[in-house]
């Protein structure tokens, strides 16, 4: 390598707003503040609205712990609730909704995994859905919530995630970051001054002021003001796989019994997402303007949700896709500045978190960060594409007949990586996993089985267990799940005791 710039990175400037900016600030100051790194947020005016909600995937809780956040305090501050997974309704005409639990299904029988036994039983006429063998799904569907304990290890992998209001979450993140020494400076319009030599960002120029830094984090959202507009990194659209180009957001009344899961309902030309928090229900309707007007989208939302809606509906454009590089020169884009995801599967926060984890892992040693950038871009491309594949499967595998919106999706070409997963599942009931998978085998099995894919064959090792033994094992699992769920508190009671109640507040 030539022209190696050996200056150490002393100051990072995070440009942007809302969750992306403040989660970045927390991550960087927590991981590297002790090394003398200065972290400054050049904060653009927030765009979040009171009705915006967020949903995490299970690993965010661990990330929060590493950042030193108290989970109960965070949930208290944000009207937060727990989630054990997602329910998907209406993706197949008459079929019942299916559940994607954040946990595994069944347990191995005579050292052979559960899945082949289930496939075999289905082929023989068993009419019990895969999710019935998940403790997580069973608890969620009965309005319960639990935190996994060691005694539950027989149920396999068990996990959970959270829902919260977006604005208080940002306030929480901001307060935490500032208490740790992150500096903030408000910013509105600005220009970028680039180094004449290497093309790096040298400073943000706003009127007479300049903000200089060694490394710039683009947390400006889908506009991608630094990476996209400033450094001209191209956007790769995924609109051929993701039909929604409008998102209507509105808040609905609180559900009387607070579900510990989010819901996705397929509508004639889009999907409605319900994210319950303690004092309201966040609703997002994703649709395509060629098939539906904004007004019709609002009416459909009200009709399908069956909830009293607040008059706070707003519509924003959406184009799913990603920037071809997330890291260019001395600029790293995180969250939506690196790529915008369809809301299905709640992966938006996760991709932000993954971007930050890799950034810390590859934090540049000097101002010349070409090696780090190369590695980072490979990882983030893989991460985005694995999420994309998982999300695309929902649309590709729909069985909603005679709706042009859905008919086109069923017929669309899909990425080879997803096609291969589907083929192998169809052939054998197994899912090949690549590097940087976000969703693990249990998630893929729930997805494929939930959408009604039925494998042609299964691991014949399952045939070595006599059918009577397998049936007894099935009954045993179902019985233990039933008993375990009965003893659980309701989600409301759990929250009252651990988060919101007087007792919880004094702890």
């Amino acid at each position, binding site marked *: 390598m030539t022209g190696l710039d050996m200056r150490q990175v002393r100051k990072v400037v995070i440009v942007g707003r809302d969750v992306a900016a403040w989660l970045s600030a927390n991550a960087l100051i927590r991981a590297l503040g002790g090394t003398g790194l200065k972290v400054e947020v050049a904060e653009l005016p927030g765009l979040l609205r009171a009705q915006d909600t967020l949903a995490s995937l299970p690993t965010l809780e661990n990330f929060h712990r590493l950042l030193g956040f108290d989970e109960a305090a965070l949930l208290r501050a944000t009207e937060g609730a727990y989630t054990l997974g997602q329910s998907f309704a209406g993706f197949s005409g008459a079929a019942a909704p299916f559940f994607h639990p954040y946990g595994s299904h069944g347990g191995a029988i005579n050292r052979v995994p559960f899945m082949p036994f289930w496939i075999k039983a289905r082929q023989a006429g068993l009419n019990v859905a895969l999710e019935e063998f998940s403790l997580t799904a069973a608890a969620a569907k009965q309005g319960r919530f639990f935190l996994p304990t060691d005694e539950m290890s027989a149920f396999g992998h068990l996990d959970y995630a959270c829902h919260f209001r977006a604005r208080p979450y940002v306030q929480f993140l901001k307060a935490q970051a500032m208490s740790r020494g992150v500096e903030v400076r408000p910013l509105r319009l600005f220009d970028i001054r680039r180094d004449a030599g290497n093309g790096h960002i040298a400073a943000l120029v706003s009127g007479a002021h300049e903000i200089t830094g060694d490394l710039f984090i683009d947390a400006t959202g889908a506009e991608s003001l630094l990476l996209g507009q400033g450094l001209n990194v191209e956007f790769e659209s995924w609109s051929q796989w993701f039909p929604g180009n409008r998102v209507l957001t509105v808040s609905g009344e609180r559900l009387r019994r607070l579900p510990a899961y989010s819901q996705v309902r397929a509508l004639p030309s889009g999907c409605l997402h319900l994210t319950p928090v303690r004092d309201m229900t966040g609703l997002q309707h994703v649709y395509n303007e060629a098939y539906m007007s904004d007004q019709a989208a609002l009416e459909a939302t009200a009709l399908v949700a069956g909830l009293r809606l607040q008059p706070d509906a707003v519509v924003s454009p959406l184009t799913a896709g990603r920037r071809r590089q997330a890291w260019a020169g001395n600029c790293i884009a995180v969250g939506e500045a690196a790529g915008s995801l369809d809301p299905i599967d709640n992966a938006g926060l996760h991709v932000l978190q993954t971007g930050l984890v890799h950034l*810390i892992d590859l934090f540049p040693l000097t101002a010349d960060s070409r090696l780090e950038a190369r590695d980072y871009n490979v990882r983030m491309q893989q991460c985005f594409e694995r999420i994309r594949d998982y999300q695309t499967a929902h649309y590709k595998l729909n069985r909603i007949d005679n709706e042009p919106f859905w008919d086109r999706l069923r017929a669309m070409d899909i990425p080879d990586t997803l096609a291969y997963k589907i083929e*192998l599942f169809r052939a*054998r009931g197994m899912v090949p996993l690549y590097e940087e*998978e976000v969703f693990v085998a249990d998630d893929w099995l729930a997805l494929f089985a939930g959408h009604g894919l039925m494998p042609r064959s299964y691991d*014949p*090792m399952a045939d*070595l267990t006599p059918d009577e033994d397998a049936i007894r094992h099935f009954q045993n699992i179902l019985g233990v799940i039933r008993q375990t769920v009965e003893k659980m508190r309701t989600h409301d009671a759990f929250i009252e005791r651990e988060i919101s109640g007087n007792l919880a507040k004094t702890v």
Partner: protein
Amino acid sequence: MNSPLRVVILGGGTSGWMCAAALSSALKLGQKDSLLEVRLVESAEIGTVGVGEATLPQIKEFNDYLGINEAEFMRRTKATFKLGIEFRDWGKLGNIYHHPFGAFGMPMAGVEFQHHWTRAHAMGKAAPLEAYSYAIQAARRQKFDFPSEDRQSIKSTYSYAYHFDAGLYAAFLREFSEARGLLRTEGRVKNVTLHSDSGDIRSLVLESGEEIEGDLFIDCSGFRGLLIEEQLMAGWDDWSKWLPCDRALAAPTERTADFHSYTRSTALSAGWQWRIPLQHRAGNGYCYSSAFVSDDEAHRTLLENLDGAPLAEPKRLRFQAGRRKKSWYHNCLTIGLSSGFLEPLESTSIYLVQIAVTTFLQLLPSGNVIDPKLAAEFNRLIDREYQRVRDFLILHYYANTRTDSALWEYVRHMSVPDSLNETIEQYRHRGRVPNYKDGLFSPPSWLAVLNGQDITAAGYDRMADNMDEATLVEKLETMRGRIEASVNAMPDHADFVADYCFVPPSKAALMEGAAK
């Protein structure tokens, strides 16, 4: 249920019998509800290669899966323990380093150990990297003990493998398999018949005239690939431009006092020599490139270098580094040398057999119609394994500063796969080592070889700087001291083997020894 799948394994070397044993163990062979009918065809007249005497820790998982008693297995195969590999004269003359089966240190404050070490080393306040490896310290002192299961203990930071007599291991697995219903047929293949429509293999015709039909054939016939290549012409990827060794001479010697708990590999001018201590003898060999040395000279070199009396005339082997383009093609699956050849520098031969066998078990066809998707997935998984090992082996050759011979000049200047170049660049730049989801090798292995062959990390993870210098130095010293104290208390390898699984020499052998 469909009629059982008829599987024919051709070849009874280590690969054939490992495959047979796994199928026998898992599948209730010979019972009326069995999924498979398995026959193994081998000829006692055809010798096996049997150089794969050193293994990796994964072999223990394989034996555990079969339910084999470790002490009995070690007695039967005259095995010893292995904590890693010692590399001598690799990188440069006079260099000695170990690739341990275990970690270097432990992560501290969320940062991998090597970054802390690089930082302390730059300050002149760290011992050599190997001082923080339990496995290396134990190996250097020729000690052995089982690792602790307590994850908090420094003694849990290593694992172990074995050296064993591969011929005895195959015989042991044969007995195991036959006791579980596996049918063995003695005979040489005279002819192979194919289905005219699909081109799949239909049957093997033996010299005796017996015809053995099958639905699936497992080619364990060795280098030549009697089915996969001679019949199906699956094709071969030649990797010899990166791994030029193409011959080996193998010779056993008497047991000596040098009873190390590791495999020794010494780089020579045209290749490298191995030494593998077993209970009753030592396995030795010279793996070399015929482009750089004549067979006669290699033969002389090996004999001169032996530290004990040879027990037999050296056995000659020829090969080419590379890989079958498709490991599973038509209804023929390859396991072992018919699938690919990578020199035994990192003891990967038996591992590659094992991973092929276990992958096949996960993709076992259901019934006697074989879904082509199973072959596609098998090939995807096995290809990755071979490529990972390939890169790792190439690193040993490429990273050298030896100017004493043409081989070392050649490999230092050759162009290596991009994947390996990136690994080296990342390590040089910031001490990063590969950490992938599937396949050999894990981060400590890469670290051992990169560091051991004098590729130095210029930088380290910035997060390491969160720790103040005094704490860092103190923690490193504590760790080093704990390892040293614990290793010193370990039994000697020779004593441990004698207690655990020693095979006393037979009376006849003692008499023979006395007669000399």
